[in-house]
């Protein structure tokens, strides 16, 4: 039996339980019993993200009458239903304790949870059993309004709990060379949306961004931070992308000043972008970004270069990516740079992933330990096997729930041990991962 040093230190080196013959409910109960230290709603979030959800027709019908935050960008979805039906699909569900979970629509093959309506209340069901009452995030007041160019503001500016997010360019140039990350569906989805006539603006107009942010901030207290993410443009050593993002952040900060009437009002903005050179980070920081995100996706040279060939090519391989990420830390400071992984892709079919569960978790946790010791904070998006991604094409399957249980708990234990005085306050309300729920207890 292999020994996994870090898992052993954390008390998480138990042999994984074989779940091949188990139903999903049985699997959940088994993991719950095996890892009682994981709060139930956090484990439930892991499983909802792993299996996805579906709605009954009565629930979906009732939702159309509500004013809720709905999916505008169709990204990381397992099911094409939301693309073709034209119905409003909630972006997230919220449990009574505030646990915030992304809605990933899934086909029957993944055994998704079901959301149904009973006596006017929405509930999450698994195998016919009601588990949690769920609520939806009310639509922010800027939804439904249009910019002076006639664009719906929610098509320009995304919304999450306390968060505004912007995808400057919904196109990743790595796809042009077929070097996209193996889990990603960005360009595929954008192309589909355009094909079916969904209103999509691939490259945002700075004036639209100004107007949308200005309007969003009229709802005082609702949005406390902002986050840029999107496709990468490696041309000219990422300088084209930097220049465009700086142009946009200046519009954002102008909108903040005008909307609040306070030249000193601080809306922290961070950018999850490509790893840059130190002088570029300085320029980005001086332009107004408070923090930066370096998305490794998976830890370790071999896996990184297989899973993210575009990043490897343009960032000097894993070592170059790491070196540049450490420079981000020097410029933005401890706790202001996040390191993103995609929890779950460690279990993609080899050679992209590991063949053993504990090996995959150990690898990820070794990465987190290194990064937390340096001063990074965690972010990430749990793996969903989306149509359009390479992993979907090769028939990858979701990892067992026990993988996510060990992973999420291990990450939190490491943050408490090595992070000490830092926390993911940027993207602290990520509905696609469980690190924010653990951090509520930090």
């Amino acid at each position, binding site marked *: 039996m292999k020994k996994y040093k870090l898992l052993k230190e954390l008390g998480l080196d138990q042999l994984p339980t074989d779940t091949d013959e188990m139903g999903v409910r049985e699997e959940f109960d088994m993991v719950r019993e095996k890892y009682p230290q994981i*709060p139930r709603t956090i484990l439930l979030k892991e499983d909802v993200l792993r299996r996805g959800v579906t709605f009954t027709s009565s629930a979906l019908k009732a939702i159309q009458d509500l004013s809720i935050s709905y999916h505008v960008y169709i990204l990381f979805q397992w099911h094409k239903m939301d693309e073709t039906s034209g119905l409003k699909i909630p972006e997230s569900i919220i449990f*009574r*304790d*505030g646990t915030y979970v992304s809605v990933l629509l899934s086909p029957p093959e993944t055994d998704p949870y079901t959301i149904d309506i009973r006596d006017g209340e929405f509930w999450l069901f698994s195998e016919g059993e009601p588990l949690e009452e769920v609520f939806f995030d009310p639509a922010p007041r800027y939804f439904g309004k249009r910019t002076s160019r006639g664009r719906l503001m929610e098509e320009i500016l995304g919304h999450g709990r306390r968060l505004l997010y912007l995808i400057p360019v919904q196109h990743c140039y790595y796809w042009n060379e077929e070097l996209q990350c193996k889990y990603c569906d960005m360009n595929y989805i954008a192309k589909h949306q355009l094909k079916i006539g969904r209103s999509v603006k691939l490259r945002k107009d700075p004036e639209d961004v100004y107007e949308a942010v200005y309007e969003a901030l009229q709802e005082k207290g609702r949005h406390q931070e902002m986050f840029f993410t999107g496709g990468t443009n490696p041309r000219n050593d990422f300088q084209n992308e930097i220049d465009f993002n700086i142009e946009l952040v200046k519009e954002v900060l102008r909108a903040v000043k005008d909307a609040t009437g306070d030249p000193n009002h601080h809306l922290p903005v961070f950018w999850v972008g490509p790893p840059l050179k130190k002088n570029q980070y300085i320029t980005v920081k001086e332009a107004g970004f408070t923090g930066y995100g370096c998305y490794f996706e998976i830890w370790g040279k071999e896996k990184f270069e297989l899973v993210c060939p575009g990043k490897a090519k343009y960032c000097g391989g894993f070592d170059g990516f790491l070196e540049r990420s450490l420079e981000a830390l020097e410029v933005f400071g401890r706790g202001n740079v996040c390191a993103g992984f995609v929890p779950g892709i460690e279990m993609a079919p080899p050679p992209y992933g590991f063949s053993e569960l504990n090996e995959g978790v150990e690898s990820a946790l070794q990465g987190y330990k290194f990064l937390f010791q340096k001063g990074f904070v965690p972010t990430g998006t749990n793996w969903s096997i989306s149509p359009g991604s390479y992993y979907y094409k090769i028939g990858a399957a979701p990892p067992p729930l026990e993988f996510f249980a060990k992973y999420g708990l291990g990450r939190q234990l490491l943050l408490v041990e090595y992070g000490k005085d830092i926390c993911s306050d940027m993207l602290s309300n990520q509905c696609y991962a469980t690190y924010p729920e653990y951090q509520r207890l930090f």
Partner: protein
Amino acid sequence: MDRLPQEIMEILKDPDTIKVIATIGEEGNPHIVMKDSLEAIDEQTIAYLELIERSNTSKNMLRNFWDKKQVSIFIYNKKAKVSCQIKTEPYKYEWAGPLWDQFLTKLWQTMPDANPETVWVLKVKQVINEDYFVRREEQDKRVITQKVWHPLRGPRS
């Protein structure tokens, strides 16, 4: 399940009322703080605004919610001669919507720089009048020899 008497609902609105909340910490020890924002939403519901992200009370509320433990509120108003304990259960963590907006608007009248975490909504389970003489009388009924061996000294108010 008890309901809040109208008098208590009114007392909760009085700015002179002292309002504290007690939660249980991870080690099982009590943790008690003032919560000026506590107010009755209806006869069965109380809410307050959690001002600091990841505060001890906030973390305890979450744990007490998961463990289905009660959270105790104590209110005292000397002028109105009210001393009352309200046992509640954490019910919901509200970070958007009309209740959140209501609490936020009120908070910013006195603390314009505050950046609160959430509104915790609590369901009333039991209302206990903690006035000494009321409690004394209850004890006298519960233990029939109480009056014999612990006679009252001094006048009743």
